[in-house]
């Protein structure tokens, strides 16, 4: 069985990069606004439906419509901030979290109302049913998974670059360090908040376009990603986007390797268990302090 290990590591890595991208967006919201966003998986689901409709109505391949999906979900995030989160963002306590819980129920059932609970698939994309043979066939990867992994890590790196190198990115960093001080320095925190929500949306928009070509699309398809992203962000240490990347990879590897040895039905239980175990050693997250 050990000869399968490289195979598992490779597919775990690809999956981990997707998780990392989803988690990085969540981590940004968490760091900047200190909000647990329970509706985040639903952003992903909406992005996947959007990808599906672009494919079905305009024959636009998911990879082609990827920038559009990033913008679509950016707008969803931006509007969610302006219409809902804005009212609760600085209220102490659990209000903001509960508002996102309401949003989660709303989005999920909106999708069910508009598009029925049936599974939908995109089967004729560029990458569909293709495989990549590496090292003389020692390593076989599904093209959709490979593209999703590579696309996700590129987007994640782009977000890192953006946060570290651009003016807006630095404003985001400053706000997450100290809101009041940032305000005193003339940073428009309101703008930072809404932009961060949009940027987090863009992250899942990209992830949605990448996942849509090999993942079933239905009203609850984002749910497990949202939950796993919460665990990844906590595992990496709150607000630490680098930590979210590394933890995402760890969780991807856990799912792929652990799922192989324990049985696929236990892979999610294992992910949540890994969190509980690792936190015993690092109670503030792997990269927290």
């Amino acid at each position, binding site marked *: 069985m050990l000869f399968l290990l490289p195979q598992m590591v490779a597919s775990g890595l690809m999956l981990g990069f997707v998780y990392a991208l989803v988690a990085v967006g969540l981590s940004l919201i968490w760091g900047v606004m200190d909000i*647990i966003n*329970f509706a985040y998986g639903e952003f992903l689901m909406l992005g996947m439906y959007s990808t599906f409709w672009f494919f079905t109505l305009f024959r636009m391949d998911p990879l082609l419509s990827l920038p559009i999906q990033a913008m679509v979900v950016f707008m969803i995030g931006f509007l969610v901030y302006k219409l*809902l989160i804005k*009212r*609760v963002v600085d*209220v*102490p*306590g*659990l*209000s*903001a*979290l*509960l*508002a996102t*819980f*309401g*949003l*989660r*129920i*709303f*989005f*999920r*059932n*909106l999708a*069910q*109302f508009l598009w029925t609970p049936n599974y939908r698939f995109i089967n004729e994309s560029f990458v569909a049913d293709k495989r990549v043979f590496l090292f003389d066939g020692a390593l076989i990867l599904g093209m959709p998974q490979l593209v999703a992994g590579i696309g996700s890590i590129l987007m994640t790196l782009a977000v890192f670059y953006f946060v570290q190198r651009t003016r807006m990115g630095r404003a985001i960093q400053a706000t997450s360090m100290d809101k009041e001080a940032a305000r005193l320095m003339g940073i428009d925190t309101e703008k930072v908040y809404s932009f961060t929500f949009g940027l987090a949306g863009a992250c899942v928009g990209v992830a949605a376009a990448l996942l849509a070509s090999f993942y079933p699309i239905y*009203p609850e398809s984002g749910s497990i990603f949202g*939950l796993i992203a*919460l*665990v990844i962000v*906590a595992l990496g240490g*709150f607000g630490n986007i680098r930590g979210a990347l590394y933890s995402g990879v760890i969780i991807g590897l856990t799912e792929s390797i652990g799922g192989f040895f324990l*049985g696929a*039905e*236990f892979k*999610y*239980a294992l992910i*949540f*268990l890994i*969190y*509980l175990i690792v*936190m*015993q050693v690092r*109670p*503030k*997250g792997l990269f927290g302090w």
Partner: protein
Amino acid sequence: MDNRWKRQRNLLWAAVVAIGVLPLLTRNVNLQHVLILFVMYAGLGEAWNIVTGLAGQTSFGHSAFFGIGAYAAAVAYWKYGASPWIGMAVGSFAAAALAFVISYPVFRLEGKYFSIATLAFGEIMMQLFKSWDYVDGATGIIIPVAPASLVNFQFHGEKIPYFYIVFAMFILALAAFVAVERSRFGMYLKAIKNNQDAAMSLGINPAKYKLLAMVSSAALTALFGSFYAQYILYIDPFMVFSLDLSLKIVLLTVLGGLGSVWGPILGAALLIPLSEYTRIALGGTGKGIDLMVFGLLIMIVTSFQPKGIIGLLGKRQPNLKGGASKDASTAA
């Protein structure tokens, strides 16, 4: 302070008696059903409030205990033909034991790390029950119909017996909350919530008291799970272990007023009729309109009344300095 407590106690008695009389005043089955769920959620809120409201540890995993109670009652009759009451006792004990086991690892974490750990725990339970053949995994359990009797915990079309059973559980949870709140134990919990390090320096052992709070809360929560299984007569892991259930308990308690004995009652009184009547009015099409409206209402209520109903009424708990808004800020 003693006078305030007396007034508070009289008010509570009045409210409890009023709730207890309500189902007798109507023959409307829908209304009786709403009252049953209202009392059940209010009781769940009281149980959750012990850990989160008093001890300040925000749990997102209480559906784990609820689910254990539900499965224990269902399995007792379905597998062994035993009375669901025996299952309920076993379930409550199992939930308490499990709370005991997981408390040590999860209480080492603080704040949101703790909350996510409880969420992870709830998800693990769901995943395990989903793949556990002994309880028919994801298929769930249809509890076989038995002759209506108290021993069988089935009353078929009759709602009143169900109401008084869950009402008794609610009173138990309410009494437990008040007893804890007014005892030395409750004082320790509040001290831990306000400043754990300071509490420790005064000789309070936070691990011990948080564990006690969790164990009693879990045992109570499981009772309601058993009730729910017997009331609906069908359970599956997605229903009874769902994160949405855990969050609904959080929602109604916070909405009513976190850390106050009135919180779960007020929150459930607002939320459960809203959710049930939208379901009765708009559900049944299978299109999720009712839940869309419910989600929308949650967003409206949380964004317009972020301090809870109790903040709106200006009521304050005699033992809590600063009232509901401050509790909420420290519990996050």
